[in-house]
């Protein structure tokens, strides 16, 4: 349990990261933001209310205490004056005794020990006059106690018997400072003249009441804030939960799970949201299914057409060949016709099989037939098979194989087709210059590149070279009579192996096609062992020093 707490604490951000983690929480969490705003606003409102309540309670307490103090003081003064008036003391000791008696009766009447009596100045010496007396406590070297300020005394001296008061800080017995009130008034000794009477009141009990009220307000405020926070959390949770559900549902829908829906409950705004979302999902699913069906119908159509064309094409091909075999017995024009018929049937045948192959890719029904194969041997065989095409232009094909002898799982039929295609293209566009085929391998991939030094292509052409039925230059002579689908099929073959087919080309400097296949079927081939652009990217003919086997 302790360890669990420790682990939980360890996940918390360090104090240095708090500001940034708060900013992150603010940006990311609707919960956090809503709770923070609610608590901050209600906290401000409560603080204002608390301050004003505390102020008015404090003020009220003070006022009532003040009224009481003034009343007490007035009553004491009146009764003292009455006592003084009725007394007839004529010697100093009797007057002093009278003063002491009145003071103790004031202390009793006002229930305070703090009483002071000073003889008002501006009166001549009177032997009867009793000495000044105070229980306030006078600092050494002071004429009168500090709490009874000169201003108050002056006001009392000139006040013609009125009451004056002043808020002060009293020092309690234990030395602590407590708030207090000093009320001053004038009394007159019939025999000894005017005296100032000061009565001090201790307000610490009022202050304690105020402190208690304030403490209660604080506690209530904090508890209320926590409660508001918790309530907000719960409310936000209830509001956010359906939004979260909608968000995850949309994500799943976007990821292709077309069956997913939001459960519809009740009649509220979330039910409306769920209804509209589900409606959208329904229509999306319907549209996608329709599109998929259409696409399937179209693919099946292409496949069916190709198959249906095959039987009559077989008849035509047989017939064409029979006629072609007897062309020597025909007049010259008919003989040429037979030749044309023969070659065009072959072209048609090639086009049809390529079309069928493409339709198989589109339908996703192309499957790999893996066999351990050495890429070098496969390339060697494939080039040998093309030997017959090289004749006219005399472009020698050179095979350079620093690596790639290892047997790797691949579909030899497809890779052979890719090689034939790339080399065929190189012959067609190589302008009779030698063609270099390189094979190499590294720990993750085997690769082959077919480099020609012929007319090359512009960058725009490079970008489109794998497009179906695209031709670099429509006016060019077609030596091999390619179908225009060869490179598209080669690209699909490479992709089916999880491999890559890439091209580099510069006008006038030739082209280089590179096929990279993973060594382990289905894995990522990673970096290709052959470089693209090729090492001799700027050369217009192969380096004679390249040590390779001249295949044809």
């Amino acid at each position, binding site marked *: 349990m302790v360890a669990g707490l420790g682990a939980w604490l360890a996940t918390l951000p360090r104090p240095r990261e708090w500001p940034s983690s708060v900013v992150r929480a603010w940006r990311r969490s609707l919960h956090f933001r809503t709770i923070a705003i609610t608590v901050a606003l209600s906290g401000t409102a409560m603080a204002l209310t608390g301050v004003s309540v505390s102020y008015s309670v404090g003020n009220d307490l003070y006022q009532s205490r003040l009224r009481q103090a003034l009343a007490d003081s007035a009553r004491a003064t009146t009764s003292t004056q009455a006592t003084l008036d009725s007394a007839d003391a004529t010697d100093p000791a009797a007057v002093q005794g009278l003063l002491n008696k009145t003071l103790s009766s004031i202390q009793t009447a006002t229930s305070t020990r703090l009483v002071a009596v000073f003889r008002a100045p501006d009166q001549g010496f009177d032997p009867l006059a009793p000495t000044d007396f105070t229980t306030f406590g006078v600092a050494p070297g002071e004429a009168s106690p500090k709490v009874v300020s000169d201003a108050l005394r002056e006001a009392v001296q000139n006040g013609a018997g009125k009451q004056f008061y002043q808020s002060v800080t009293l020092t309690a017995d234990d030395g602590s400072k407590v708030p207090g009130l000093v009320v001053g008034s004038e009394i007159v000794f019939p025999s000894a003249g005017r005296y100032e009477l000061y009565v001090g009141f201790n307000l610490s009990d009022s202050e304690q009441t105020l402190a208690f009220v304030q403490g209660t307000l604080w506690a209530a405020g904090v508890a209320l804030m926590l409660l508001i926070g918790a309530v907000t959390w719960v409310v936000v949770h209830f509001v956010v939960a359906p939004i979260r559900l909608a968000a995850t549902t949309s994500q799943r829908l976007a990821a292709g799970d077309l069956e997913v829906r939001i459960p519809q409950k009740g009649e509220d705004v979330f039910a409306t949201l769920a209804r509209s979302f589900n409606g959208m999902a329904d229509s999306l699913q319907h549209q996608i299914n329709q599109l998929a069906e259409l696409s399937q119908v179209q693919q099946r159509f292409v496949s069916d057409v190709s198959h249906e064309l095959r*039987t009559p094409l*077989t008849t035509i091909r*047989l017939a064409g060949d*029979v006629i072609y075999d007897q062309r020597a017995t025909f007049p010259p024009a008919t003989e040429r016709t037979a030749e044309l018929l023969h070659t065009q049937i072959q072209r048609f045948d090639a086009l049809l099989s390529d079309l069928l192959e493409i339709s198989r890719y589109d339908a996703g029904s192309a*499957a790999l037939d893996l066999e351990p194969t050495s890429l070098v041997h496969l390339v060697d065989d494939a080039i040998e098979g093309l030997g017959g095409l090289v004749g006219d232009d005399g472009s020698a094909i050179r095979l350079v194989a620093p690596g790639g002898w290892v047997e790797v799982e691949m579909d030899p039929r497809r890779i052979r087709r890719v090689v034939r295609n790339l080399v065929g293209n190189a012959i067609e566009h190589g302008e009779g210059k030698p063609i270099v085929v390189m094979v190499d391998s590294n720990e993750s991939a085997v690769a082959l590149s077919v480099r020609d030094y012929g007319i090359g292509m512009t960058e725009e052409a490079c970008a489109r070279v794998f497009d179906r039925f695209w031709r670099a230059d429509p006016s060019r002579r077609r030596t091999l009579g390619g179908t225009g689908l060869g490179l598209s099929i080669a690209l699909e073959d490479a992709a089916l192996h999880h491999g890559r087919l890439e091209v580099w080309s510069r006008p006038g400097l030739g082209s280089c096609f590179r096929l990279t296949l993973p060594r382990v079927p289905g894995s990522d081939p990673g970096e290709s062992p052959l470089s693209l652009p090729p090492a001799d990217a700027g050369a217009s003919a192969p380096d004679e020093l390249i040590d390779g086997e001249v295949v044809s």
Partner: protein
Amino acid sequence: MGPRILVVDDDTALAEMIGIVLRTEGFDPHFCADGSTALECFRTAQPDLVLLDLMLPGLDGIEVCGLIRAESGIPIIMLTAKSDTADVVKGLESGADDYMVKPFNPKELVARIRTRLRPSPSDVVAEKLQLGDLSIDVAAHEVRRGDRVIALTPLEFDLLLALASKPQQVFTREALLEQVWGYRYKADTRLVNVHVQRLRAKVEDDPDNPKVVLTVRGVGYRAAAPTG
């Protein structure tokens, strides 16, 4: 007249054209346009070889192939418009010796027919061969395990004989294609795989654990050494 060939194809134009090509080459073609009557035609024509279209009205080519195989081991060449693995393998498993994908050219067709009709390779000197616990009588075209005769089609016999004539030598699939099927160029090695499976099903005690025709991984097949 030369060898009799039964052409089972519902496309009359193609059948007629194949007939013309075959007659030119000295064969004697017979025709059948419906899968359901194919077996009848086969019985009346008594052909030396059957060209069988895969898609037929009535019974399809694969069923017809099975019916003919049940009665006879004569060579059957499938004609198919589909070169998809599944269709080809199904056709071969039902007993066809070879297949041709439409459109084919006449020379190829004739070459394949001749390969299938030629007598077994005569370079085998010995009259009797021993292969594992099998004994092969070359002249009688007969394979025995002990006293029991194992019925093989001519093609299966040729395949077994090719392997047995040089025991312990490993044959690549390509070499077998050339020697047994007469292909001179790279062709579909699935032909070899399927026929080796069929051969094993007949000659092995446990086809999943072959003792007679052994696989050499990554290369091809070889025959076991003679025992006993």
